[in-house]
């Protein structure tokens, strides 16, 4: 038999409703559109809806990147000055202060600004009532791709942090829908990955850095949708249609300054708390590993040994041992990737580190590195949450495995096509 399913029935029911109402309901003053109706006609338009969503997201990243830049430079100079307080790093203690704390932790602190401004822009979109419309527009697309409409909210939350986003999947009633949403959620770029993009895109793509970052986010969404589709098709336990989803759209409102600032501030607090704990810990470990045995050059430090050990794995993608170390520790928290560069390149100051990045990578490997960072592994805390929410080591392990494979594949494609285009 043909393609008869729940959708067909839903369609016919709405047709019946239309007929019933045509006969029993008269609307006075029909044709008078409210402003909200007019906005919805544009934002929810079948053709324009998704392009508008993409343009708004692109503008969001442009804004976050451009506005934060002067602030980043200022904070960086401040850390540069602090780091130089005790002169050249000749003793371990001075080196710890200037290379570990100011050069490592201080360097990653700078990225609080793009995060704050990104969430400022997202808060405006959310409070104005646009984001639920984006969810509605994406639902159409996602439903066709085998994701449940309610998945979009957790995916959207993933822009902030994948951990609460995965917990938010509890609102999805169907176990299969929920598992799929959990499995693909880490592909959504969380704010911890933003510093990596800002650093590398800034080093290679100049005025187009905002666009490059935006593309990482789009790539994340596209991969999430593709993988969801694949899992639905291929994994026996996950087959079936997603259940239909109805959502109510809140009215459009003028966002209040207070609520937007509050939103931005709460993100900043999350980041500061992370900086005071795991990023500080990461800085200490990395400083220690890169400075000891004391007096050895970087290549023969503990970090160097580790790096050379795992370098062969990522060598085909064009990453050197420092990139390997950065990715290794990035498993603890993605910001540590940037922190690692700060410490290993050991120069201090974003411009100099950007120059160092540009010296260690080509634009193609830089792009591949961004892609790899996007996909390769959820951070440790997220993985723990996945284990708790799925209650299964099997699915957790599966997630690690598929993401590593996918990261390697996509980054590989970037390297190959990039080199072809560049004529290398």
């Amino acid at each position, binding site marked *: *038999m*043909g393609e*008869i*399913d*729940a959708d*067909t*029935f*839903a369609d*016919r*029911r*709405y047709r*019946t*409703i*239309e007929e*019933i*109402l045509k*006969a*029993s*309901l*008269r*609307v*006075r*003053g*029909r044709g008078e559109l409210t402003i909200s109706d007019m906005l919805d006609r544009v934002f929810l338009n079948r053709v324009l809806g998704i392009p508008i969503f993409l343009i708004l997201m692109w503008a969001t990243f442009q804004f976050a990147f451009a506005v934060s830049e002067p602030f980043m430079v200022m904070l960086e100079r401040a850390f540069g000055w602090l780091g130089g307080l005790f002169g050249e790093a000749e003793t371990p203690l001075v080196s710890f202060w200037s290379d570990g704390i100011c050069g490592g932790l201080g360097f990653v602190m700078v990225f609080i600004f793009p995060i704050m401004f990104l969430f400022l822009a997202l808060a405006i979109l959310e409070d104005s009532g646009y984001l639920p419309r984006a969810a509605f527009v994406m639902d159409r697309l996602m439903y066709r791709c085998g994701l449940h409409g309610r998945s979009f909210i957790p995916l959207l939350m993933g822009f902030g942090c994948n951990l609460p986003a995965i917990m938010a999947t509890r609102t999805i*009633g*169907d176990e299969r*829908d929920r598992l799929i949403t959990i499995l693909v959620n880490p592909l959504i770029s969380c704010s911890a990955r933003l510093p990596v993009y800002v650093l590398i895109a800034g080093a290679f793509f100049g005025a187009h850095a905002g666009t490059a970052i935006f593309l990482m986010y789009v790539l994340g969404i596209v991969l999430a949708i593709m993988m969801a589709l694949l899992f639905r098709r291929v994994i026996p336990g996950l087959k*079936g*249609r997603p*259940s*239909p989803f*109805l959502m*109510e759209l809140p009215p459009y409102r003028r966002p209040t300054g207070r609520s937007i600032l509050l939103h931005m501030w709460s993100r900043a607090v999350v980041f500061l708390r992370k900086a005071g704990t795991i990023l500080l810990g990461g800085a200490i470990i990395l400083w220690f590993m890169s400075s000891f045995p004391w007096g050895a050059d970087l290549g023969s430090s503990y970090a160097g040994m580790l790096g050379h050990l795992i370098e062969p794995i990522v060598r085909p993608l064009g990453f050197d041992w420092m990139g390997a170390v950065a990715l290794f520790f990035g498993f603890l928290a993605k910001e540590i990737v940037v922190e690692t560069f700060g410490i290993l390149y050991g120069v201090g100051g974003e411009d100099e580190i950007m120059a160092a990045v540009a010296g260690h990578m080509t634009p193609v490997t830089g792009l591949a590195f961004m892609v790899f960072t996007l996909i390769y592994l959820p951070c440790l805390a997220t993985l723990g949450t996945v284990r708790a929410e799925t209650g299964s080591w099997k699915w957790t392990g599966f997630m690690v495995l598929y993401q590593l494979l996918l990261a390697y594949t996509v980054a590989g494609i970037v390297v190959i096509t990039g080199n072809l285009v560049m004529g290398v």
Partner: protein
Amino acid sequence: MIIKVALIGNPNVGKTAIFNALTGSRQHVGNWPGVTVEKKEGRCTHRGAEMEVVDLPGIYSLTASSIDERIARNYIIKERPDVVVDIVDASNIERNLYLTLLLLELEANLIVALNMMDIAASKGYEFDTEKLSLLLGVPVIPTVATTHFGIRELKDAIIEAASGKNKRRKVTIGYGEDLETEIRRIEEMIMEDPHLSGTYPPRWLAIKILERDEEVIGILERYQKKDVLEVVGWEK
């Protein structure tokens, strides 16, 4: 005799307000068996008739995919309330009628409370309730729960419906010839099993099977209706 009444409707349609208007202070809150979803019950007396009112969860649809929807539909199938009052937000009528059609399919003894008539009127909606009632085949009572407008009429309608004096023609929502052929085919297979067709409305089962409803497919597996499952390509 106590009339068992179930209230059902989408979220945010004023269901709780209707519940309160019907039962006043005579209510208590418990849980649905086995789940932590709240179950509210209340009683009222009207024209000498005693009614027991159950507030079902606010839902948009009657699929098997969420706990709330399963509770609602299993209550209607298994407990067979004497009257089901579907509370409809008149100002969002299109979306709300979706659930109404599903309830008709479940062959519930239905009354539609067309609530929030004040808001609908402010949006310029003018209902021909008699016509609507005719098309749906069930009584339609306009209400404004917040001001208790129409509550007396609703209670009257409940008593009338419970007494079986509802003379309205039974309406079947048609799905078009292509789907109806399939529905009839499966319905006939279901009718062969008197116990199955006595427990569940056969047409509803047929539609749910075509919709690939997991719970219903489970029911057919229990009844070992292999022929039906084969029709929809369901193999174990």
